[in-house]
Structures are given as structure tokens and as C-alpha cells.
């Protein structure tokens, strides 16, 4: 718990977190709240009511210019040309070998303008890569990460909370906003972007707002607590929530050695679009070279799986746990594992929990699915 580490950066809400009694940890170069009350209580508040997360450590990159569409098609794996202004999609930057440099959300803001949300720990790496690729395209790329704060409002009451802070003139559009879409809106008096996205498996929103507006909006949203039950949620519950929803965590579930096919996000890879970086390698892998894949599993015996633990299948080592935890809403414990491609749903696995092999079963992803998202 090194909240004195001076090399780590603070978000504009750092003082709010400390004042709220948060335990603060270093994450991806940032001092972030891991929990305010308890991970399990915060997890529950998102599943049943509403949670607010400071995700200002995430990075934002703008791509603009006549070549924007061709450029985005070249550097990302999903079909960025298919997006209409206001629409967003899950995607990734790949290297030539098909490995994931980072996973992203790509929003199209206009015919010639895209906005990319990247992982905190990868901000510089991604921007350097994107800028380098941009040299032969008619686009400008801007790292806007320091200008933006980002709040996530997630849970069944998230619309209720958002309605309270969004300007009345934007309320109808907010209510109609489709999943993964983004809109410009006045929020607590300032121009922001509101996306219907999230990392929890619940109905929710992610707000991109000017950094100097973060404290005002944070307080306005928390002030809706009597109506919405909104509570601040730290990285601890963010991790258990995303794991139940089987969303990948960069650096844990995959890295630049992992292809999106292995990581289980083939649905976001569009091999039928014109060439993009990494495509040839993915085509080859798809033709028969895929040796491993991500599966979800649930423990059938006591013991909690953790990142890095060895997985046994038919008595032999067959991979490792990429993410594991208790599963507060689903019940019991479980997670995701990178295992041999031969492993199938309903197969029995054993997880080496500190020297003891504990039984687990491969299950369908996701581990948890909300009734409406």
C-alpha cells in the first residue's frame, strides 16, 4: 500500500478518494482507490443499484483527418469503417505477429474523426505506435489523455443517476442511447461525452469530461445516492465485476504475445476487411495453428484460483489461470484460463492451488450475464 510513491500519478479525484477513506494502491503507474468500504459490498452495489468509478487513468487518443477511416482500418482489428458517427466498438491494436498491443474502445465522432480509449498502463506505448503508423496517412493523432477525466457509472440505477446530472435538453437522447454508442452532452453544466459502455456486465455509462470538472461531477453523481443508491467503487470490485462478465484485463489475460483469436475475442476481428496490421498472422493461425485459447471455469472444490496457477487437464499441464477470484454474484470461485485448444466446455480441469490440485469445470462465457445491459 504505497500511497507515498512519488513516481505514481494522481487523478483529479485523488483527494476525494482519500477523504472518502479509500485504500489507495499503485496500478499501472497511478495511485488508485482499491476499495472504499469492502470489495464485496462495492461489487454488490453495482449489481443491485449503482456504482461510480474513477477511471481517469485511462488514456484517450483522437485521430482526425481525411485519411482517418483508412488509418483506423489499418491499425485496428475490428471494422472501423462500419461505424457511423456516434457509434463505438471493442477493438485492438495488433503487431505484425497478430499479438495484442492493447485492447480499446473506438468511437467514431465524425466522418473523419475517431476517439480511442486505451488502457492506463499502455498510454505511451499505444500513442507512440499509433503516431508511428500515422506517418503514411493523411491524419493527425493527438494524445488527449491529460485533458480528460473519466467516470464510469454502472448498475441498474445508472440511467437514473445520469438523468439527474445531464442537461434536460439531452435527457431524451441519453435514454435512447444504444449500447456502445457515444453522445455529446452537457453534464453538470459542462460539455462532456457520454458513452453507453462499461466493464462490469451491467447497464452503464462512461463519461469523458474535462479534468477540471471531475470533482464537481463526482460530487453531483454521489448526491443522487438517496434515489439511486450510488456508491464509489474501487479497482478491487472493478476486477471481480469484469471477471464475472469475462471481460479481458490487459496484462493479465493477454499481452502482446496473445492473439485476439486466443484471447476469445474473434468476434471483434474482421478478417474480411482490407489488410490491417496483424491480419496475415491471424489468417494463418485460423487456418490451423491455434494452440491455445481462453476459457472460463468454475471451481468445484475449495480454493481460489489466482493469476499464474497451473491448470491440469487429463492429468497433464495444459495452461494457466489468467484471472481468478471469488465470484461474488455467481457464487463460489472461478475465473479465466489460457489452455490448450483441445480443452472443451464441460471438461474437468484441476487448478494447482499452492501445491494442491483442486477440481474445476470449464463453463460457457460469460460467468455472469445481466438480464439487461
Amino acid at each position, binding site marked *: 500500500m504505497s500511497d507515498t510513491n512519488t513516481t505514481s500519478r494522481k487523478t483529479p479525484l485523488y483527494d476525494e478518494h482519500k477523504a472518502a477513506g479509500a*485504500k489507495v494502491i499503485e496500478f499501472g503507474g497511478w495511485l488508485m482507490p*482499491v476499495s472504499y468500504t469492502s*470489495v*464485496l459490498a462495492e461489487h454488490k452495489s453495482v449489481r443491485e443499484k449503482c456504482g461510480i468509478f474513477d477511471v481517469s487513468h485511462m488514456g484517450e487518443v483522437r485521430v482526425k483527418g481525411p485519411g482517418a477511416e483508412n488509418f483506423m482500418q489499418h491499425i485496428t482489428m475490428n471494422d472501423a469503417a462500419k461505424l457511423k458517427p456516434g457509434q463505438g466498438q471493442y477493438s485492438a491494436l495488433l503487431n505484425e505477429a497478430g499479438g495484442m498491443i492493447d485492447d480499446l474502445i473506438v468511437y467514431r465522432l465524425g466522418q473523419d474523426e475517431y476517439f480511442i480509449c486505451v488502457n492506463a498502463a499502455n498510454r505511451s506505448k499505444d500513442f507512440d505506435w499509433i503516431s508511428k503508423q500515422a506517418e503514411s496517412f493523411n491524419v493527425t493523432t493527438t494524445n488527449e489523455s491529460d485533458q480528460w477525466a473519466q467516470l464510469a457509472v454502472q448498475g441498474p440505477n445508472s440511467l437514473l443517476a445520469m438523468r439527474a446530472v445531464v442537461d434536460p435538453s439531452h435527457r431524451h437522447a441519453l435514454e435512447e442511447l444504444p449500447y456502445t454508442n457515444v453522445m455529446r452532452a452537457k453534464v453538470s453544466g459542462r460539455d462532456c461525452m457520454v458513452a453507453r459502455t462499461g466493464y462490469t456486465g451491467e447497464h452503464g455509462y462512461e463519461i469523458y469530461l474535462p479534468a477540471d470538472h471531475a470533482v464537481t461531477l463526482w460530487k453531483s453523481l454521489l448526491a443522487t445516492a438517496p434515489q439511486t443508491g450510488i456508491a464509489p467503487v474501487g479497482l*478491487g470490485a472493478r476486477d*471481480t465485476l469484469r471477471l464475472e462478465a469475462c471481460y479481458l484485463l490487459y496484462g493479465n489475460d493477454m499481452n502482446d504475445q496473445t492473439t485476439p483469436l486466443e484471447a476469445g475475442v474473434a468476434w471483434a476481428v474482421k478478417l474480411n476487411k482490407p489488410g490491417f496490421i496483424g491480419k496475415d498472422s491471424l489468417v494463418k493461425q485460423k487456418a490451423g495453428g491455434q494452440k491455445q485459447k481462453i476459457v472460463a471455469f468454475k471451481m468445484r472444490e*475449495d*480454493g*481460489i484460483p489466482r493469476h499464474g496457477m497451473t491448470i491440469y487437464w487429463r492429468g497433464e499441464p495444459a495452461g494457466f489461470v489468467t484471472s481468478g*477470484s471469488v465470484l461474488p454474484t455467481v457464487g463460489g470461485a472461478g475465473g479465466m484460463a489460457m489452455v490448450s485448444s483441445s480443452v472443451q466446455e464441460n471438461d474437468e480441469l484441476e487448478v494447482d492451488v499452492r501445491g494442491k490440485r483442486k477440481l474445476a469445470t470449464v463453463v460457457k462465457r460469460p460467468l455472469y450475464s445481466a438480464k439487461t445491459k
Partner: protein
Amino acid sequence: MNIPNELKYTKDHEWISLPDAKIGVTAYAVEQLGDIVHIELPEVGKELKQGASFGTIESTKTVSDLYMPVSGKVTAVNQAVLKSPESLQSDPYKNGWLIQVASAADAHDLMSAKDYEAFVTEH
């Protein structure tokens, strides 16, 4: 901070009661761990040396080893706390005891409540 006077303490935040030699972890440790979700303890009859690991406490995020405050044979294991680890959170010194050993004879070199409080404040 809740540090009962009648117990003895280790630098790894275990406590041991005298003379009945029940062993548990301190309120301070429990607070640091956060939500406790799983506990593993030895079988009755196991002989363990002072400083040896006698089990693990797992919170939502981390696993911590438990270390023997004294050497001895395990004479009882708190089955209730294994079934509901959250009881350790609410009551670490009474219902949250973990194991009992045959003797607390070599507990005299452990920290007093006062020393433990100073130790925790420093760290």
C-alpha cells in the same frame, strides 16, 4: 485500535491466548486484508514449529500465510470460521480464533499488547 491486553502477539499479526493457547489473527491484520473469503487450516494432530506456516487467509485480492506463534501440536481447529470466514472479520479475538495448540509455554518471548501496538504504529 482493538488489541486485548491479555493476549500475546507476533510481528506477523497472530495472537495467542494464555493459558489455553488459542491462536488467531489481529483486528489490525483483518482490517488490512479486507474481505476475507477463504481460510485454510491444518488438521488436528499436526505438529508445527514456531514460525512455520499453519495455513492461509485469503481475501478478495491476496493470500497471506499464517505463522505459528509457538511450537506445538494442533489440538483443535475452529470449523465454524472455516465455514464462514466473514466471522473472523467481525470478531477476530473470540469467535474468530483459528486453531488451538497443546501449550502456550514458549509464548513468553512474544510481544505484549503494548509492544504490539507500538509495532503496528511504527509500520
